[in-house]
């Protein structure tokens, strides 16, 4: 990854939600990089801090109660956390844009879709209203919706079409970096496939780097180059798609794969990960996965594991690897 241009560089990001009598430690000491034209899949269960990370990149963490406690985020050569509100407004939508989870609610019901796409163009490019509107119509066509529908309102569109509109808005100014926050969660499976296919095409066409937030490992396998697995605000395993899927190292990642149904072994029971994610207001002192981990040892409860390099691109946070020759079960099968 080092030999390519890094578009997004997050180092030691820590985001907490400070409430009156407790603090939610949503993102802790998170580091990740995305190179130009690459797609990173950010995987984890609900509440792992995926969306908070995404919002932090746009500096949109709701404040209060959200506080970015430390770390740095660089998009290209700009240090996001040091920018003023006005500078930030110039970056949003232009350098970094975001696709939201629910297309049903992420479009404003009182404007036509054409106007909403044109708005982003108008904000960031020096064009007239008519030119912006014409560009909006072209963008619509690009995402597979006939131009003439630009004058229609969101409620006249189906869910999949709305998500295409949202994608068109996100891509309106050819951003360097795109954050897709569960872009297909609210859609049914056939539409999911269409939207993913569209995103894949557009990514190849424009070379946009992307973070894809999801909890669907199938989608990750489909379009991501790299994968980062999040658990309780930390990245527990990070590597290329091939490494994380086929040479899984972290017990949590293994748990995720084990809880997926396998089409070749239809009669087998699924193996869920026992227990629940720890309360983010009171994370354990040691490894936050330790209470649910089947490889747990006394050392795991003592202190946080440090990231360990398995290969130059593959890191894992797990103390079990301190024991020479340790292998998780899934790796042995595969």
């Amino acid at each position: 990854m080092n030999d390519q241009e890094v578009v997004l560089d997050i180092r030691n990001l820590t985001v907490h939600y400070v409430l009156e009598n407790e603090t939610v430690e949503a993102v802790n000491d998170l580091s990740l990089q995305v190179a130009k034209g690459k797609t990173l899949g950010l995987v984890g269960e609900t509440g792992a801090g995926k969306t908070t990370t995404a919002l932090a990149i746009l500096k949109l963490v709701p404040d209060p109660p959200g506080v970015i406690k430390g770390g740095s985020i660089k998009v290209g050569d700009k240090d996001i956390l040091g920018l003023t509100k006005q500078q930030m407004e110039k970056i949003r939508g232009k350098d970094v844009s975001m696709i939201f989870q629910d297309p049903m609610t992420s479009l404003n019901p009182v404007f036509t879709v054409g106007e909403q796409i044109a708005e982003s163009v108008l904000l960031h490019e020096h064009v007239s209203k008519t030119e912006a509107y014409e560009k909006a119509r072209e963008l619509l066509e690009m995402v597979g919706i006939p131009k003439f529908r630009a004058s229609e309102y969101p409620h006249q569109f189906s869910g999949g079409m709305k998500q295409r509109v949202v994608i068109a808005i996100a891509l309106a100014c050819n951003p360097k970096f795109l954050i897709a926050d569960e872009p297909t969660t609210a859609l049914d499976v056939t539409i999911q496939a269409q939207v993913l296919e569209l995103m894949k095409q557009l990514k190849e066409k424009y070379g946009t780097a992307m973070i894809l937030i999801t909890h669907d490992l199938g989608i990750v396998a489909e379009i991501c180059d790299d994968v980062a697995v999040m658990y309780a605000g930390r990245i527990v395993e990070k590597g290329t798609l091939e490494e994380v899927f086929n040479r899984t190292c972290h017990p949590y990642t293994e748990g995720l794969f084990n809880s997926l149904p396998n089409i070749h072994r239809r009669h087998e029971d699924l193996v869920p990960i026992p227990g629940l994610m720890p309360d983010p207001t009171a994370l354990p002192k040691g490894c936050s996965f330790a209470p649910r981990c089947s490889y747990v040892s006394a050392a795991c409860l003592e202190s946080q594991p440090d990231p360990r390099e398995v290969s130059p691109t593959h890191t894992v946070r797990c103390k079990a690897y301190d024991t020479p020759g340790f292998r998780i079960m899934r790796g042995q099968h595969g």
Partner: protein
Amino acid sequence: MKQKILASRRYRKRSRFAEVWHRLIKNKGAVAGLFIIAMLALVAISVKYILDYDTQVIAQHISERLQKPSIHHLMGTDNFGRDIFFRLLYGARFSLSVGIVAVGIALTIGTTLGALAGYYGGATGEIIMRATDIFAAVPNLLMAIVIVTALGANTINLMIAVGVASVPQFVRVTRAAVLTVRTQEYVEAARAIGRNELAIIFFHILPNCLSPIIVMVTLRIASAIIAASSLSFLGIGVPPPTPEWGSMLSEGRRFLRGYSYITMFPGLAIMITVLAFNMVGDGLRDALDPKLKK
């Protein structure tokens, strides 16, 4: 190409309006109300060219005082011999304009403050809302009396007084509506494309809060007319001899026993106008509510 775009945009604007309009005219009460308001507006605008203010509206004819309604004086004359019908027609100018301008003032101040309070919350919201509470705690009419007394009694000050007195309602309605819209994902999406906050408040959030505000406007116009009339009735509104409906009521009350028509007609005029605005408000509320769409 350019013309094509323009055409499609014009079509859209008409269609949105047409949709609400279509639903509004299905409501008989609203149509009746609209008709009355239209007639009143027509009268208010045209009366200036039909009647001569100095000779027909405010000139006193002692020989014709206190006449009963007849073919010469449709609604009779008052104690100065002025034709009540003419005065009523001319009074529509004052009553309607007081109502509309006062609500315009309340709307501008109220929605701005309400939107800011709703969007920012925190200290800003708290200060705005507590100030609003203080204002709302003083009875409307009393507030208006204080303002008129402080500024002096004339038509402009009456409008300001009645307007300021209904600001709290607009603040509350707008804030409540903004609170529900502000957490919508499209607001966050607007932020994510780099819109600044004020633009988000006024272009993205407020248009989504319009229906309660529009309804509030029609209802408040009715009460503003009543408030203006009440102030005139109390003698601190529009000064005589201006034919404002409330002051006509007030002047006539001394003759209530023998010549009740002097108060009855202005009273009816106020009642019908208020009723018309209320009916339109009611109809608009239904027409703007997408859940009632058939």
